[in-house]
């Protein structure tokens, strides 16, 4: 038996270089662009300077854009709570009819690209030709429009319609985890229904409420499409459209970098607050089982409540989708849908006549598949490394993989533009720079999904194979991969959905040869081609919904959260 101790050194895992490479790539993807961004914002001819920041602080237009962003985000946050929280409570806790339908519609709103919603609302509530205003004038004979979407309130409204699902998810998942036994415990001690809601339910939901508010604010902060479509015609900028404008000829990159910093810092700060909130007191962990839960009877409010839900969904889904379908099928979208107005010309125009479309669809799909595939494999490796503590500093891996979440798309684009328009890595003008942008931007979502997957696979399942004679890589193939498969497919789908709708980074990084669908839609807006926008939008929605269906199949549940 002596000397039969094979591989002291083989015990240094052969897999180690793989892990090391993945971690290095991560540092590289994140550190290089952000490093350049910071450097550019303080870079001057004679070394570091605060001149760019000073210019931002002295430029009333830039300050106004910053202020507009604050106003927009704050109101979107509040409005999202006002819409999302009641909806969540109604579907999670009451005997509301058609709860499943409402939940599906919230999901639809969640995955609808916000800029498509904004386009639809231009057609619905534009002051002159907007269908709702036309209807209003026809019915009342008034000369003035009923609503004008090209205003700050209009912008807040449209953005909220696609942002409230973030609040909904936070609240609904929290409510689902709070067993009604906790509320019953208070009730049996003599608290009335209102008292229970005030003293037990509300305090327990409060962190989720605030955290949903923060998520909604973050969405609004980072959004480019909706403000570009609704605020620019109205004559005002938000910070994202302002950064984009700074990139128009002649580009003022240093200034863009300096304006990006407050956006980056605000995002990081808000996320920090959110993490603190959720981390404290262990609310999220509330009761493993969730307990039995009796639905609150709504009584005679049952149907009015449903009507209210459907009204929200009309604004978020029915009307916008309807007007998109109408625009896609009609010669003139503002005219009634009669036989003579009906046409398929928009489809042939979009796919065969308009020069950029075909290439853009190919580019989008290529980037989507590539990013999703490389991303899903990457986040799987990363979350595996972090979960199994395979390298020293594995906590850092998780941190870095989730870090891009603090980088708004526009800021990321600025950073990548700066980093990759100069040696040693000249990627600008290629699909590669979009790939890097998408990969970085979608990494947190993919990582979170993948992390949850590996958390659910107990390490003993791997240990059991190791001790029976299988090496780590063999176990990865025989045990881990088959068990993680559906989770990894889900991560793939999340990344894919994120990529095909991406606009805010693409709009800065594209070149005529590397347009993607969202950019083409944006171009078509400049040309007033609403029919073609609608067609491309519908294609994008179909792709999205097909992918969502795939996720639901893989996970065996809907993508909104831990329920069912």
């Amino acid at each position: 038996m002596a000397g039969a101790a094979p591989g002291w050194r083989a015990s240094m895992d052969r897999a180690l270089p793989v892990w090391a490479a993945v971690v290095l790539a991560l540092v590289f993807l994140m550190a290089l662009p952000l490093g350049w961004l910071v450097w550019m914002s303080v870079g001057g001819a004679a070394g570091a300077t605060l001149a760019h920041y000073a210019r931002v602080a002295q430029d009333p237009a830039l300050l106004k854009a910053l202020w507009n962003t604050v106003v927009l985000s704050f109101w979107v946050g509040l409005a999202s709570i006002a819409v999302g929280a009641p909806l969540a409570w109604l579907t999670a806790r009451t005997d509301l009819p058609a709860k499943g339908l409402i939940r599906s519609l919230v999901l639809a709103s969640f995955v609808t690209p916000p800029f498509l919603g904004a386009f639809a609302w231009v057609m619905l509530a534009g002051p002159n030709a907007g269908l709702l205003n036309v209807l209003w004038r026809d019915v009342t004979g008034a000369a003035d429009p009923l609503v004008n979407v090209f205003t700050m309130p209009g912008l807040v409204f449209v953005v909220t319609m696609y942002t409230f699902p973030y609040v909904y998810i936070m609240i609904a998942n929290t409510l689902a985890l709070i067993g009604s036994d906790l509320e019953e415990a208070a009730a049996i001690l003599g608290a009335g229904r209102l008292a229970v809601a005030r003293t037990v339910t509300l305090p327990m939901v409060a962190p989720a409420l605030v955290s949903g508010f923060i998520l909604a604010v973050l969405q609004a902060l980072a959004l480019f499409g909706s403000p570009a479509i609704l605020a620019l015609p109205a004559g005002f900028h938000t910070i994202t459209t302002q950064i984009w404008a700074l990139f128009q000829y002649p580009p003022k990159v240093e200034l863009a970098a300096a304006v990006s910093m407050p956006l980056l810092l605000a995002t990081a700060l808000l996320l920090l607050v959110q993490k603190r909130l959720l981390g404290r007191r262990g609310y999220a962990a509330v009761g493993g089982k969730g307990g039995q839960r009796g639905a609150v009877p709504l009584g005679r409010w049952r149907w009015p409540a449903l009507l209210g839900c459907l009204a929200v969904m009309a604004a978020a889904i029915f009307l916008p989708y309807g007007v998109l379908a109408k625009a896609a099928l009609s010669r003139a979208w503002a005219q009634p849908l009669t036989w003579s107005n009906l046409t398929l010309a928009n489809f042939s125009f979009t796919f065969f006549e308009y020069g950029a479309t075909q290439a853009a669809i190919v580019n989008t799909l290529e980037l989507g598949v590539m990013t999703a595939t490389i991303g899903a494999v990457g986040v799987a490796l990363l979350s595996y490394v972090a979960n199994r503590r395979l390298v020293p500093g594995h906590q850092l891996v998780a941190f870095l993989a989730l870090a891009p979440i603090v980088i708004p798309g526009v800021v990321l684009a600025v950073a990548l533009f700066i980093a990759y328009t100069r040696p040693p890595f000249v990627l600008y003008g290629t699909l590669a720079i979009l790939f890097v942008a998408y990969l970085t931007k979608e990494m947190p979502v993919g990582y979170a999904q993948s992390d949850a997957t590996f958390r659910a696979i107990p390490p003993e399942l791997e240990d059991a194979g190791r001790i029976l004679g299988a090496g780590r890589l063999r176990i990865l193939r025989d045990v881990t991969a088959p068990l993680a498969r559906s989770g990894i497919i889900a991560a793939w789908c999340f990344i894919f959905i994120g990529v095909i709708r991406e606009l805010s980074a693409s709009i800065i990084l594209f070149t005529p040869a590397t347009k993607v669908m969202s950019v083409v839609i944006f171009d078509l807006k400049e040309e007033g081609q609403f029919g073609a926008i609608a067609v491309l939008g519908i294609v994008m929605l179909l792709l999205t919904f097909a992918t969502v269906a795939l996720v639901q199949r893989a996970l065996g549940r809907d993508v909104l959260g831990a329920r069912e």
Partner: protein
Amino acid sequence: MPGVSLRALTRRYGDVAAVDDLSLDVKPGELVALLGPSGCGKTTTLRLVAGFLAPESGEIWVGERCLSAPGRVVPPEQRRMAMIFQSYALWPHLTVAQNVGYGLRFKPELNRAARDLRVAEMLRVVQLDGFAARYPGELSGGQQQRVAVARALVVEPEILLLDEPLSNLDANLREEMRFEIRRLHEKFAITTLYVTHDQAEAMVISDRIAVLEGGRVAQVGSADEVFLQPRTRFVAEFIGRTNLIEGVAMEPDRVAFGGLRLRVGAGGMTPGARVAVSIRPHDIAVGVPDDTRAPGANTLPGVIQRASFLGDSMDYQVRVADTDVVLRVATAATRRLRAGEPVTLSIDPAACIALAASKERG
């Protein structure tokens, strides 16, 4: 068939030494239980032996092979061991036969047919023939447990490691499986380390018990030895119920407490030293004051504070006269005394075990 030798193992988590200078020898073919409360380092010890963890100091030898030393750890897959996990760790995506046969894939000398044959045989041994094509999710807890046992035994490991394998079973099944595991051990005689926090389980299953406290071995011995001759207070309290009387040694075999004297079996105490004396509840006889008593026994006057009828036995709490000491006494239920009755306790000096205080940690 090699034995296992753990030599001065230490493993820390942060500042806490989970395993602290632990040494233990398991003879070839022997089954040793690592017994202790949670946090005593028993599972860490097992994972060190399995090679999932590297020791900070100390070595692990199996026969003539040094498998673990600081910085040099043979990976688990090359240790020729098998392990049964608390959660069973069955692979949910593989059938029972595939689970059991997995380890055989790494034995190049076996072809497919030979492997299938071995799997079928092993399933018969654990009485699961007919379940080969099922998935683990379709089995009961007890059946899953048998699959885990089969998967570990089929590879004919040199060393078998079990980590609380019965703790997920309900009480009846657990008792049954104790005997089953003992039966399999007698059949295959594999050198085995068995981690448990259940003293009855350890006593039924093992050849020897290593009682762990604070990452060290407090005592190793047969079930008899650790029960009847506990060496530390911790061991006495952890294995079975006991009464502890604190006192001062007057003579090598005599302890004084509260004005009373107690003769202690083994003797050898240093006069003047503080000692604790352990007396098992069933080693104390209760009598009314004028009963005749065994010659040479310690006798203590007392009053029954509480008497509980437990069906097949009586459980008394007796306060020893002129002291604060309350002793638990277990007797047959044939004679039933009531609370408030004055009694005389008589205790054989051999049943009075003088204990060293547990070693200070760190």
